[in-house]
């Protein structure tokens, strides 16, 4: 119980800090909207073309927006040695991981919740469906689970943005590919049964990387 109490306190602290500054949500949202608009102009008004490229565009946008968001997550902790402040508190490293992960997940889901309707409006595609929502939530969980780990790893390096992208994107490539394929099926109006193989892989990725990241976070964060 103490574990969750402390993890949620970290999430709440990150949320409160974000409400005050809006640094992550604002910068990532501007980036996301810009990419959507640019893609919209690039691919013109052909509905067939849109349907073909939309799943890839959607996940390229979310992947890069996610990297931007995750980069910010631990930078806040480096300010005035706050990460060290957490490290000298009687809290398990795993609770720090869960707290930071839940905060990043919340921010990503808020950004996606704003971006998806805009995407649907500009591309005139049935994006606001239960299928797409489930794919988005499941993929984001796996994405953030790995991203929080790598964000903690990268924060102590000089070129942290580059390090995060180089290390993180190859690891999450499989889940992004699955999300693209599942989204393609969903946007084509295929039944649930055609989505399940992809959702199973995404679910397995989530489970494996949540457990692995949870277990090795302590080694990553220790000096």
């Amino acid at each position: 119980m103490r574990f969750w109490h402390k993890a949620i306190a970290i999430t709440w602290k990150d949320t409160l800090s974000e409400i005050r500054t809006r640094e992550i949500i604002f910068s990532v949202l501007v980036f996301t909207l810009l990419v959507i608009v640019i893609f919209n102009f690039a691919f013109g008004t052909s509905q067939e073309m849109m349907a073909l490229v939309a799943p890839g565009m959607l996940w390229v946008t979310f992947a890069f927006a996610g990297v931007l968001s995750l980069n910010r997550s631990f930078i806040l902790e480096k300010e005035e040695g706050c990460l060290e402040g957490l490290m000298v508190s009687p809290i398990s490293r795993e609770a720090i991981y869960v707290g930071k992960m839940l905060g990043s997940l919340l921010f990503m889901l808020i950004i996606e919740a704003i971006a998806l309707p805009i995407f649907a409006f500009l591309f005139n595609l049935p994006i606001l469906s239960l299928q797409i929502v489930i794919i988005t939530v499941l993929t984001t969980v796996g994405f953030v689970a790995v991203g929080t780990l790598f964000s903690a790893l990268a924060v102590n390096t000089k070129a942290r943005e580059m390090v995060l992208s180089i290390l993180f994107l190859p690891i999450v490539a499989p889940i992004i590919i699955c999300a693209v394929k599942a989204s393609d099926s969903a946007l084509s109006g295929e039944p649930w049964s055609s989505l399940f193989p992809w959702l199973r892989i995404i679910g397995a990725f989530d489970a494996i990387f949540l457990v692995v990241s949870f277990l090795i976070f302590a080694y990553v964060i220790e000096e």
Partner: protein
Amino acid sequence: MERPGSTSQAWAIEIQGLTKSFSNKLALNGLDLEVSQGESVVIFGPNGAGKTTLIKVLATIMNPTSGTVLVDGLNVKHNAEEIRGRIGVVTHRTFLYSNLTAYENLEFYSRMYDVSGRKKRIHEVVAMVGMTSRLYDRVGTLSRGMQQRLSIARSLLHKPAIMLLDEPETGLDQQAIPMLWNALETEGERKRTIILTTHNLERGLEMGDRLLILNKGKIVYQGSRQALDLAGLKEAYQHSMRVRV
């Protein structure tokens, strides 16, 4: 090193053969040190002498490469989380979130330390450091000295038995230091054990029961304040500075 008539249980801190290395560099080199309950030990030394590394090992942020380190009778390798609940740490960095108010920061840390009666305790520690009037201001709007006072309040929230202070006087106005030192040293009847690292020789002489000089990861001088050989201390201090340069 063990004092006559004492037992190992009496030590607040007990270090035997502590070594800490980074790649090929030896930051602490076979360090031995015992600190009694309620004793204040001031550690001097040039930059790179190993002072901060020693504090980090005691604070369980870093694992020793070899040797035994007991804090309040607990081993830093096996009981790190329990030790963290018994120590307070103040460094030149405040560990405070600039976007949150002083109260929100202290409430957050009191949750981390499972402090009971949080609201009352926050008001108590803030009063101890003379920051009551700025409790609901954002930390980012406070001066450096005020942030450092708040950092001291943060470290006192859970009534730690042992204080680890790594150059804590950063930004503090000189008049406030004795008042803050008093808050750090005692609470009620209880005198805390203090390990303080500083470059300020005069301040250290005022504050410590025992004075140490660390150089190249080794203790090169130690003596109690009562039986202080000031000339010897100054010579050892200046020598360690010269050796470093």
